[in-house]
């Protein structure tokens, strides 16, 4: 009987750690994006590379990522090499250069490599507001039907990529 009681703290702690484990990774600040399950909002933006107008119909027909970035954003510096690596392995990424200047963005891509299928210039940030982003970098996963299935806030790296990759398939 007494022995049984001595195990009680251990058992209570085990239960607590299960609860804590389940809760890790859920962002307590997370506001579920209302875009999940919807198609990408209407937009018409200028492409960085060729100054052509790009709209929804030009989006890829296969699963892809929409990645919001900017040359002003420190975390994007860290994220960029990983995106280049992903693009090499065949992941389609549409970049949105958010609240940024064209010349700086060109410099950046020349210097660090260009992982993007094409880069849209969202200088005023309207598209960002439509997508409901809260900062950069921020990445959306869109499936082959053009429906947003996942949103990732913050940089993509080797640790969190498996989760995102899961949604991409």
């Amino acid at each position, binding site marked *: 009987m007494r022995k049984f009681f001595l195990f009680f703290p251990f058992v209570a702690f085990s239960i607590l750690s299960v609860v804590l484990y389940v809760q890790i990774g859920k962002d307590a600040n997370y506001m579920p994006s209302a875009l999940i399950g919807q198609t990408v909002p209407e937009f018409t933006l200028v492409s960085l590379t060729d100054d052509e107008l790009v709209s929804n119909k030009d989006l890829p027909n296969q699963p892809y990522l929409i990645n919001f970035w900017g040359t002003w954003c420190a*975390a994007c510096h860290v994220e960029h090499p990983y995106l280049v690596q992903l693009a090499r392995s065949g992941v389609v990424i549409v970049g949105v250069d958010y*609240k940024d200047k064209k010349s700086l963005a060109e410099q950046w891509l020349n210097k660090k490599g260009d992982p993007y299928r094409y880069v849209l210039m969202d200088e005023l940030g309207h598209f960002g507001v439509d997508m409901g982003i809260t900062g950069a970098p921020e990445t959306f996963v869109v499936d082959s039907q053009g429906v947003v299935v996942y949103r990732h806030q913050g940089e993509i790296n080797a640790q969190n990529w498996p989760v995102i990759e899961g949604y991409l398939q």
Partner: protein
Amino acid sequence: MHPLRRKRLIIIIAILLILSSAVGLVMFALQQNINLFFSPTQIASGEAPQQATIRAGGVVVEGSVKRDPQTLYVSFDVTDYQYSMTIEYLGILPDLFREGQGIVAQGSMMANGVFKATQVLAKHDEEYMAPEVSDALKNAQSKRVTVTESALSY
């Protein structure tokens, strides 16, 4: 009863008494004081109870902040990009309150569908910087350049 047994019994009863009254107190206080969170969509679909203290939150809609010219009364809309709702508040908004910024308000729904807040909290995310930071960074850099330039000219 054996005196040792009796003493143990008294101790156990005392512990149980304290514990059970504490549990009762906790249950009572929890019932009164937990606040559920609702998104504008949930509120629009009528999920939120009226008159009960709840929390609601979303992103402050650009251009929706209206102030009363005489008092500290303020109203603004928040959205989850699907539905919007109006929040009214009498008091001082937090420093981090800004249009386009996520906020959480505590208060209750009134019959007219307006959320009456008793407390407004704004959250600042540290993980990544707001776009405006860039300009500041650039400013700081250019300032640094001008400082060196002026130093050179002397």
